[in-house]
């Protein structure tokens, strides 16, 4: 059961992450009223954040450390991820990527 303290902490978390996120969203929109350009190095560093984060969330879910160390990857997840990556590469369509990945996972699990 979630305690009252935890309950308050979750709200604090929502407030902190929400405020910070709004600050990021507004950051350069407001700064650009004064400034003309972003330092290219800063922009370049920021541009690496999405790929690094997306891969850091996706890859351990497909190939967890335990599976890697025991050389026993889950074939369903692996095949589903590969099929999804292929569809994403070919179509760039998020819905098709998810649909194909889930279909492959369900089929491999059923076999």
């Amino acid at each position, binding site marked *: 059961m979630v305690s009252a303290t935890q309950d308050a902490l*979750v709200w604090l978390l929502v407030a902190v992450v929400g405020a910070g996120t709004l600050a990021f969203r507004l950051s350069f929109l407001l700064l650009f009223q004064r400034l003309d350009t972003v330092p290219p190095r800063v922009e370049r560093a920021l541009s690496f954040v999405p*790929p690094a*984060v997306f891969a850091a969330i996706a890859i351990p879910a497909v190939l967890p450390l335990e599976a890697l160390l025991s050389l026993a990857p889950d074939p369903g997840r692996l095949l589903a991820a590969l099929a999804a990556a292929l569809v994403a*590469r070919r179509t760039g369509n998020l819905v098709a990527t*998810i649909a194909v990945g889930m279909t492959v996972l369900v089929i491999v699990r059923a076999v």
Partner: protein
Amino acid sequence: MRTPSPDLRAGATDMAPLLVGIAPFGLVVGAAMVSSGLSVPQALGMSVLVYGGAAQLAVVDLLASDAPFLVVAVTGLVVNLRFAMLSASIAAYFRRLPTAWRWVVGSLLVDVLYARSVTTFDRDREVDRRWYYLGAGVVTWVGWQAGTVVGIVLGTGLPGSVPFGFVVPLIFIGLLVPALDDDSTVVAAAVGGAAAVLGANLPLNAGLLVATGCGVAAGLIADRRVD
């Protein structure tokens, strides 16, 4: 000077088909939030105030594994740091914009809206960017929140035989792969992913943060090699 309504409507109708991707993502995030112990008001509050699926998933995932407050907060913020980059990019399309409009544009800013809007702005010089963006942005917001509410209501009631949890990594694969458009970006993703696998057991659940830092650093180093 055109009246705002045609461009407002154009933005809305251009965004509508993308709801097929946005609403189910919201549904998954809504279900994930209540499944990991958030109350319904907390889940709704997070959906409105944070309004970023990836960060919401990362936060509830860490909450469910009892990570310390600071780690959860910083992780959520790091995942959303990309909005600063989108903010910089979209700002270039809104050169002479009143402050009130800048708040509107920033508040609605999410990846799919950014991608849809700049594609149109690059193609159609005549469009009133403000109204187009607003139309597209409101559709995105409503579609996302509607999907989230359905997910919150269904919660753990989603059919157990379907491994819905795997939708999450698939979404990130779907966002990541089409964005791998140069060598340095591929390096950033590969290093970030590998570091996350190796760092899964780091104390304080700091794996995602450390992995992101490694990925960004690797991308910058790869840039230098190219130069």
